[in-house]
């Protein structure tokens, strides 16, 4: 399984944080890969509508997240705008944000 995760917006536009991050589940430790599978299932990811609800009128500085999951022949993209109220989506986003942070950390160390 391959996930592309993009974060946009927020109080500032950081080009480094806006770059898509790719997470390959077979490159993850086994426990994390199965956590990811469970999180996607709990969020009913493949059944979700692709387009997020629009932001509330007058809202500003919110971030938007785009998640594209490719699993075998299945491919689905979901876009969400914060604040994210669904706890299953919150948990999935938190997992992806943690992985993205780990991957980005590498660019400071290299």
């Amino acid at each position: 399984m391959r996930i592309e995760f993009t974060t946009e917006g927020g109080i500032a536009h950081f080009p480094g944080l806006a770059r898509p991050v790719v997470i390959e589940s077979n490159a993850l430790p086994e426990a994390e890969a199965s956590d990811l599978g469970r999180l996607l299932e709990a969020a009913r990811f493949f059944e979700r509508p692709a387009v997020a609800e629009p932001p509330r009128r007058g809202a500003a500085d919110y971030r938007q997240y785009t998640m594209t999951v490719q699993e075998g022949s299945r491919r689905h993209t979901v876009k969400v705008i914060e604040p994210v109220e669904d706890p299953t989506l919150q948990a999935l986003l938190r997992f992806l944000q943690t992985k993205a942070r780990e991957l980005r950390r590498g660019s400071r160390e290299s």
Partner: protein
Amino acid sequence: MRPTAPRPGQRAGVMAVEGQKQRTISDSHNTQNLPGDVVRLEGAPPTGDLAVDEAYDGLGATYDLYWEAYDRNSIDDDGLPLDATVHFGQEYDNAFWNGERMVFGDGDEELFNRFTISLDVIGHELTHGVTEDEAQLIYLFQPGALNESISDVFGSLVKQRTLDQTAAQADWLIGAGLFTANVHGVALRSMKAPGTAYDDPVLGKDPQPAHMNDYVRTFADNGGVHINSGIPNHAFYLVATLIGGYAWEKAGRIWYETLRDSRLRPNTGFKRFAGITLATAQRLYGTTGLEQQAVRDGWSQVGIVVT
């Protein structure tokens, strides 16, 4: 507190107590539940929680700028209570305006400190509420970049007024103190020198232009609302510096009256906005004075000619 006699522009039939803040700070306890539990109400003493107390003080300083400098009674000029939530989410790297309240994360402590640490960020968020009340600038492309710039302008003015700084003394940074020591950068944005606030292996390089020649055409970030805001931000810095003295007094007044002007439509772009600032400067300070010349020169130096 000032007398409560009705002022021009005040909504009829409303008897709000003018000049009286009504702040409520709530705590999400690191969940994403809004509004969270109320932890400090208006008039209550400091709690000892830095984020709570910074939000309380920051909302107060922002209210005071609008009330004391522009005679505006809160976000809606009608005494709207000011609500904020702190400790939102886990390792949450953002602050936003959700249309009703200001929401602040604690930061991940790797790249970002808590988002209440910068007074101008608090002023920035509250000003989104003022802009929505007055102009409903669409949060896309140039109107969105103006929306962002107006938040930076008044956010910076809140800080300058609190620190008693003239335009020449101010740092004109947005979000100074927000980065941890790991980050190569001083702030989120620089109004004085857009594009120079950070250059970091993880965050990338500050993408803000300071001139129309470098305008960034993009669909990212709602059409570059936090990117191209560098152009009107720099114009304001130039106007305020050319006029001199305290920036909130004349330059801030010109921008504030522009925000209230009925010609400022939701789809207004930079050039139209600039034209209204010039007309406002002429109305307030005369057609031949230093102020209108400063407005012309400021916009001209970012590549926008106003006549």
